């Protein structure tokens, strides 16, 4: 294979030299930091976000199945294509190929807040690589509370393109925010944060050495945060270095092996409240997988193991992980925490395909142990097993799909200071789904769905009283028919049952079974190209039976709720520029409670309440000219409620809203376009749920952008 490389110009060589110098210096500093962190084993501080990023980094490499799969696929592709080395090409041309600026400024208004914002995006495209910088500013003033938020940020990215035989990227972020919130008692809390971070990453993917297909990646990151919230300082300054290696090779046609190693170390300082301390964290993981794609099936088996430990300052926490500093002196509120976690994950997946039949099996197990040196949480163990079976096939014009999902997981905890585990908290769930599609006569299609699901919560040794089961059954049949684009109908029959069962005697008094039935016919009639008529009717009834309602101690009455809803929607397009939509909803509801059941088992109900809601909507859209649209809408609702009791009572409430607005999208110029986007709406509303801020307000989003 021929590799073409153009002669470098002086500025290019200089730029390469500078970047290489930065890379070497940063790598050296990072290595030093990592070694220092391990040698001196300093105490460590991390914010939750930092800790999470460490954890996710480890998890990343653990959950590397997809990445491993990609590498395995590459190994197979490389095997098929023969030798595939990495090539480096450089195109000729000026050093700076393009320079672009995109300033933008705007204002937003809504029922919740007013916002003012500005942004500038600068992009430089070099012969090799590119640079982009985004600066943003915003100010938000909340209408429903005394709260203002100001945010400033700057973000740059640099990619070196094909200048090196590896991919080199640099990013930098600066975020600043200041949030002032005053509570009802008049106390103002300031939440202020400034965060700076920079990342330098280098990677080379899918290059061959002998029979191996390899990928390498290294990252160096520095972070610095200063923040205060509720008068508590929370600062940190840290650097981290991470590296990963993946390799794969094809052992036989369509069968590959792949492995991966990953490591990360972090070190720095942290300040929390009035305390300060060095911080550190380390994480590593290893993964291995077998991937195959032969004959009728394909799949994979992967196993990964990961762990991390981190030292950081944290507030004292109780056995539930809640901050527990009540009555403590300031110096006792913050503790030096050491958190460790070990995790193992196993995954198997197989897909078997034969003509129109597909069988997919997925099995997985995840286990982990998480331990805290100081927190009252102590040691936590978790395990989760999952199985997904999916079987789908077609016969003639029918198609059918079955799925069965099983999940079984538990967690256990040895609370700090305890000598024994509390007992496992189990969660088990099973779900069966079936979907059957079948064309019937003419243009009629049938969709039948069935679902059965059981979820269970079980506390081992009854360490809590919340053992419970929930059984759900759904059956629905839908028929659709279409008459050559002129007329469409649909009919839905649906039955649902939900059983809520608390197992323990202290919780079982509310156990109940809810049965719901629904019939819903609808049609859509295209009367003319400018007129559409859409109508649907829905009848719904739900019975609630309390399992232990016959017991004297259970003061629950069985009941039913019934609803009928007629919805009519007319769409009119009298001219190509005008759309009118009129909609009416008529809703009738009844609630009733069972009074008695006779010897034949027939139940008698007392009607408690009936309610009628009538709502009419009108919406108009008029396209005045290209890019200019006028819009408006209004609705009126009347809600009549009759409550039957010792003394019958009737209440009638009315509510409504009207809004008018316009939308403008305009662009001037081709080479350096100036763009305006404006959406402005004025709202007025009335009704019992409407308050001062939502009775009269503007909704707007107006911005101006220029590109040069």
């Amino acid at each position, binding site marked *: 294979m021929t590799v073409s490389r153009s002669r470098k110009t002086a500025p290019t060589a200089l730029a390469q030299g500078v970047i290489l110098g930065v890379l070497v210096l940063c790598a050296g500093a990072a290595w030093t930091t990592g070694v220092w962190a391990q040698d001196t084993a300093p105490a460590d501080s991390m914010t*939750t976000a930092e800790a999470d990023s460490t954890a996710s980094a480890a998890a990343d490499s653990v959950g590397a199945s997809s990445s491993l799969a990609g590498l395995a696929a590459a190994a197979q592709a490389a095997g098929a294509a023969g030798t595939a080395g990495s090539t480096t090409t450089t195109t000729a041309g000026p050093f700076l190929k393009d320079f672009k600026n995109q300033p933008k400024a705007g204002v937003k208004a809504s029922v919740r807040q007013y916002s003012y914002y500005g942004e500038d995006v600068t992009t430089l495209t070099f012969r090799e690589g590119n640079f982009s910088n985004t600066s943003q500013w915003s100010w938000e003033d909340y209408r*429903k*509370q005394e709260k203002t*938020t100001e945010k400033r940020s700057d973000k740059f990215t640099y990619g070196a393109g094909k200048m090196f035989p590896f991919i080199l990227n640099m990013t930098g972020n600066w975020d600043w925010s200041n949030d002032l*919130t005053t*509570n*009802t008692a008049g*106390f103002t*809390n300031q*939440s202020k944060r400034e965060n700076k971070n920079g990342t330098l990453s280098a990677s080379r993917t899918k290059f061959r050495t002998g029979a191996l297909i390899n990928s390498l990646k290294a990252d160096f990151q520095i972070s610095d945060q200063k923040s205060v*919230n*509720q008068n508590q300082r929370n600062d940190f300054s840290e650097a981290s270095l991470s590296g990963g290696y993946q390799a794969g090779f094809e052992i036989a046609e369509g069968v590959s092996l792949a492995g991966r190693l990953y490591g990360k170390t972090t070190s720095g300082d942290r300040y929390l409240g009035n305390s300060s301390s060095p911080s550190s964290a380390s994480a590593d993981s290893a993964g291995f997988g077998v991937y195959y794609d032969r004959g009728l099936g394909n799949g994979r088996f992967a196993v990964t193991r990961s762990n991390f430990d981190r030292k950081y300052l944290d507030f004292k926490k*109780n*056995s*539930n*992980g*809640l901050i*527990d500093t*009540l009555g403590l002196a300031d110096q006792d509120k913050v503790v030096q925490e050491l958190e460790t976690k070990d995790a193992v994950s196993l995954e198997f997946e197989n897909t078997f395909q034969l003509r129109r039949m597909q069988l997919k099996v997925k099995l997985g197990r995840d286990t982990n142990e998480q331990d805290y040196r100081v927190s*009252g949480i102590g040691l936590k163990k978790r395990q989760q097993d999952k199985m997904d079976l999916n079987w789908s096939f077609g016969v003639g014009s029918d198609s059918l799909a079955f799925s069965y999902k099983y999940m079984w997981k538990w967690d256990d905890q040895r*609370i700090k200071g305890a000598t024994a585990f*509390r007992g496992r*908290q189990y969660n088990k769930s*099973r779900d*069966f789904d*079936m979907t059957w599609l079948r064309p019937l006569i003419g243009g009629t299609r049938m969709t039948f769905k*069935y679902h059965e699901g*059981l979820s*269970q919560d079980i506390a081992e040794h009854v360490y*809590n009283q*919340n053992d419970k*089961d929930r*059984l759900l059954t759904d059956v629905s049949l839908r028929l659709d028919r279409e008459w050559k684009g002129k007329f469409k109908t649909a009919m839905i029959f649906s039955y649902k049952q939900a*059983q*809520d069962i608390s197992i323990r*005697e*202290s*919780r079982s*008094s*509310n156990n109940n079974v809810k049965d719901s039935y629904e019939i819903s016919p609808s049609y859509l009639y295209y009367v003319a190209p400018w007129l559409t008529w859409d109508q649907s009717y829905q009848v719904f009834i739900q019975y609630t039976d309390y*399992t*232990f309602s016959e*017991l004297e*101690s*259970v*003061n*629950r009455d069985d*009941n039913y*709720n019934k*609803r009928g809803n007629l919805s009519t929607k007319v769409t009119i397009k009298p001219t190509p520029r005008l759309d009118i939509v009129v909609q009416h909803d008529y809703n009738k*509801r009844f*609630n009733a409670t069972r009074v008695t059941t006779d010897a034949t088992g027939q139940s008698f109900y007392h009607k408690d309440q009936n309610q009628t*809601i009538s709502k009419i909507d009108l919406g108009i859209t008029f396209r005045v000219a290209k890019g200019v649209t006028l819009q408006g809408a209004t609705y009126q*609702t009347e*809600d009549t409620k009759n409550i039957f009791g010792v003394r019958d009572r009737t209440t009638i*409430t009315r509510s409504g809203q009207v809004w008018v607005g316009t939308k403008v999208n305009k662009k001037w110029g081709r080479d350096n376009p100036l763009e305006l986007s404006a959406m402005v709406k004025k709202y007025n509303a009335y*009704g*019992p*749920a409407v*308050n001062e801020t939502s009775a009269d307000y503007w909704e707007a989003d107006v911005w101006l952008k220029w590109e040069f």
Partner: protein
Amino acid sequence: MTGSSRFVLWILVIVAMTAAAAGCIFEPRDPAPPSTISVQYLPKTSPSNVWANLEKSLANTHAFGWEDDITPDGTTFTYIPDTAADEQFPGVFASWDRAKEISFINKLYDSEVTITAQMRNDEFIPPDPTGTEVIWEGVVYDLTVTSKIDGSATRYRGRAIITFRLEGNFWYIAKWEDQFGEGNPDNPEQILPTMGVLRGTFGSK
């Protein structure tokens, strides 16, 4: 018998077998008869009743009561934390939905705690429910979570905007937006955390 008829017959056989198997695989456990007076939940025919049910659910650490008040499956439930909680648990609330809310309340109740709660301040006057959506602005809730293990107690007091939605015949909580932590009535200068911190703690486990 035609191929199509045979296929339908097979479907019926499979459905019958599934229904039979469901009796074994999907068999819930037998509950113990209740020993205590039942938790008297109110019918969800008004937002006030729904909100009051939360208080009963908390006091009895009865998860069904909370789950039953959150918009049902297939509809959207949103939780928006206040700034302090959001900063304390970055990323946890990005896609908080019904499933996460249910997971949170179950983890809280399973953690051996007792809870005392007043979900509405006396000054708050709820608007009359009408139409299909009602918004409560500025309701102040106050709850104390006490661990049965170590006896530690944490108080949460926050101001929230709650959106109730009518689904079918019943009202549900569709959106819960915490605005800020309120002051401690016993020490007004101390700002107490909102339930966002409680959600963040149990939601990130």
